[in-house]
C-alpha cells in the first residue's frame, strides 16, 4: 500500500517529502548521493583555496574568497538535506574521513597555476551544472530545492571561470600559454565527471526509475561537450582532442571518450592528491575539535544556568 503510494507519487512527478514513507533503498541511495555531493563541495574548497593567498588582483581575490565561501554554504545546505533522511552531519563527516563515502574525484587533481582557477570555473563547474540542473527536478523535495539555489550560484561560478580564461586568453603570450595548459589538464578529468559510460554504470538504472537521476551519463556528457566546444572558440583556446568535430547527422559534436581506467584509479584513491585532500580535511577537523567541544560545553552551561 505504502509502496503503491510512493510509486504513484514518483510517477506523477510529485515530490517525496521527509515525512513520507519511502523504500529503504531509495533513502539509502539518496543519503549516499547527497552526502557525496556535500563532501565534494567541502573537499572542493581545497584546490581553489590554494590560490586565495596568491590571487593576482584584489578583485580576483575577493571573487575567489566569495566562491570558496559559496562552496562551504553548498556543503551546509546539502548536509541539511541529507539530515532530513535521518542521518546527521557528524556521522557523514566521519564516513568521509574514514574513506567510506566518496567525493567527486575531480578534486583529486592539483591546481598548479592561476589559470586552473579559470579552468575549474569554466569546465568543472560547467560539468557540475550540466549534472545538477536536472537534480532541481529530482523526486526528493529537500534535495531538489537545495539544488535550485546551488545551481544559480554555480552558474555565476562558471561565468567567472570563463571570464578569467577570457582575460588570460586575450593577454600576453605567457598568460595565454598558462590558460591553454590549464585547459589541456582539466579537459579530460572534466569529461570523467559524468561517470563511466551508461553500460558500465552501477547506479543509473534504479536512480532513473526513482527520478533521482533524469538523464544517463553519456547523454549529459554529450550535452556538456556540445555546450563547451563553441565556448572554447570564443575563448580562443583549443580543447585537447583532435577528435572533436560537428556531426550533422547526429546533431552533436563527436569527441574522444576519456580514459575511464584513469577515473577508476582516481576513485580508488590513486589520483595525484587523494591522500592530501583527506589529510587536510582530517587535520582541520581534528585541530578544530577543541573549539567545537568548547561551544558545546558553553551551550550546556548556559542551558543549565537558565534552567536553575
Amino acid at each position, binding site marked *: 500500500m505504502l509502496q503503491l503510494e510512493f510509486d504513484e507519487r514518483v510517477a506523477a512527478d510529485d515530490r517525496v517529502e521527509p515525512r513520507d514513507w519511502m523504500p529503504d533503498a531509495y533513502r539509502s541511495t539518496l543519503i549516499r548521493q547527497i552526502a557525496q555531493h556535500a563532501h565534494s563541495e567541502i573537499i572542493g574548497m581545497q584546490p581553489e583555496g590554494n590560490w586565495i593567498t596568491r590571487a593576482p588582483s584584489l578583485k580576483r581575490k575577493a571573487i575567489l574568497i566569495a566562491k570558496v565561501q559559496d562552496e562551504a554554504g553548498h556543503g*551546509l545546505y546539502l548536509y541539511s538535506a541529507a539530515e532530513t533522511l535521518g542521518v546527521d552531519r557528524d556521522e557523514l563527516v566521519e564516513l568521509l574521513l574514514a574513506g567510506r563515502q566518496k567525493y567527486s574525484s575531480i578534486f583529486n587533481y592539483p591546481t598548479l597555476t592561476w589559470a586552473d582557477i579559470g579552468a575549474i570555473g569554466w569546465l568543472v563547474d560547467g560539468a557540475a551544472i550540466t549534472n545538477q540542473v536536472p537534480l532541481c527536478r529530482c523526486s526528493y523535495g529537500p534535495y531538489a530545492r537545495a539544488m535550485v539555489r546551488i545551481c544559480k550560484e554555480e552558474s555565476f561560478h562558471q561565468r567567472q571561470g570563463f571570464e578569467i580564461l577570457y582575460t588570460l586568453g586575450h593577454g600576453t603570450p605567457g598568460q595565454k600559454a598558462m590558460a591553454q595548459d590549464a585547459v589541456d589538464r582539466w579537459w579530460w578529468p572534466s569529461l570523467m565527471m559524468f561517470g563511466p559510460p551508461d553500460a558500465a554504470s552501477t547506479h543509473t538504472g534504479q536512480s532513473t526509475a526513482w527520478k533521482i537521476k533524469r538523464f544517463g551519463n553519456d547523454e549529459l556528457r554529450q550535452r556538456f561537450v556540445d555546450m563547451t566546444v563553441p565556448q572554447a572558440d570564443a575563448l580562443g583556446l583549443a580543447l585537447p582532442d583532435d577528435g572533436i568535430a560537428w556531426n550533422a547527422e547526429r546533431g552533436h559534436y563527436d569527441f574522444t571518450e576519456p580514459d575511464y581506467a584513469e577515473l577508476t584509479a582516481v576513485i580508488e584513491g590513486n589520483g595525484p592528491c587523494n591522500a592530501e585532500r583527506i589529510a587536510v580535511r582530517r587535520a582541520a577537523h581534528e585541530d578544530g575539535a577543541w573549539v567545537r567541544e568548547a561551544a558545546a560545553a558553553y551551550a550546556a552551561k548556559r542551558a543549565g544556568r537558565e534552567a536553575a
Partner: protein
Amino acid sequence: MRSPFFATPPATTMPDAAAYALRLGDDALVLSHRLAEWVAHAPELEEDVALANISLDLLGQARALLAYAGAVEGAGRDEDALAYLRDDRAFTNMQLVELPRGDFGLTIARQLLFSTYQRMLYARLAASSDETLAGIAAKAEKEVAYHVDHATQWTLRLGEGTAGSHARMRAGLVAVWPYADELFEADPLTDRLAAEGVGVDPSCLRGEWDAAVDGVLREATLERPEVRPAAGGGRRGLHTEHLGHLLAEMQSLHRAHPGVTW
C-alpha cells in the same frame, strides 16, 4: 644616535589624506589575508563561512581605502599597484594584523582586540570632513559591528567552554596583547588630521576600548594578560618578520607578469 628602529619617522611623501587612507587600508588588507588563510581549514563549516565573510568585508574596505589613497596621491597608482607593488617597508599596517594566524584562540583574540578598535575608529571617522573617508567608514562600521559580535561570542565560548579552551584563549591573548598599544599611538600625521577634522586621534579611543574589552574578558572569565608591549613601528614601515613572507606569497603572481590585466 638612536637606531632607525626608534627614530622618528621620515616625512611621508604622500599627501596626508592619502597616507592616512593607506594606513587604514593596509590594516584591512593584511588582516583580510590572514583570515582568508582559514578558509577550508576552520574548526567547523559555519566558521569557514564566517571567517571568509569577515575577510571579504575587510578586503572590500581595503580596496576602497587603497583606491582612495591612490587617487589622492595622484601618481597613477590604483588599488593593485598599492597592494602588489610596494615592498614591506612601505606597508604602514599595524603589526597586530600581520602576526601569523595561529590557532583559533589567537585568531579570536586578535579579532576581539582589532574589531573593537576598528569599530570605534570607523564610528568617529564617519563624521570626517573628508566625504570619501566618511562614506567608507560609515559603511564599514556596520560590517565591523558584526565582526565585534563574532569575536565576542567566541571569546565567551572559548573562555567559559572547557579548561582546554580557556587555556588556549588565554594563550591567544598573551600572544596578541603586546601589540595592542600600537592601536592607540598618535603621531604627527594623526595629530594634523585630527586637528583638521579629517582623521581620528587613535589615543582618544583607548578608554572606551579598555572598558569594552575588559567587559568581554570579565564575562568570559578571562583576564587581561600582564605582558610587555612590543616595540611597534608598523605605521613607520617597521614590521615583524612575518609581513615579508605574507607579501612574498601575496605578490608573487602579480609581480611575475608585470603590467598585465588579470
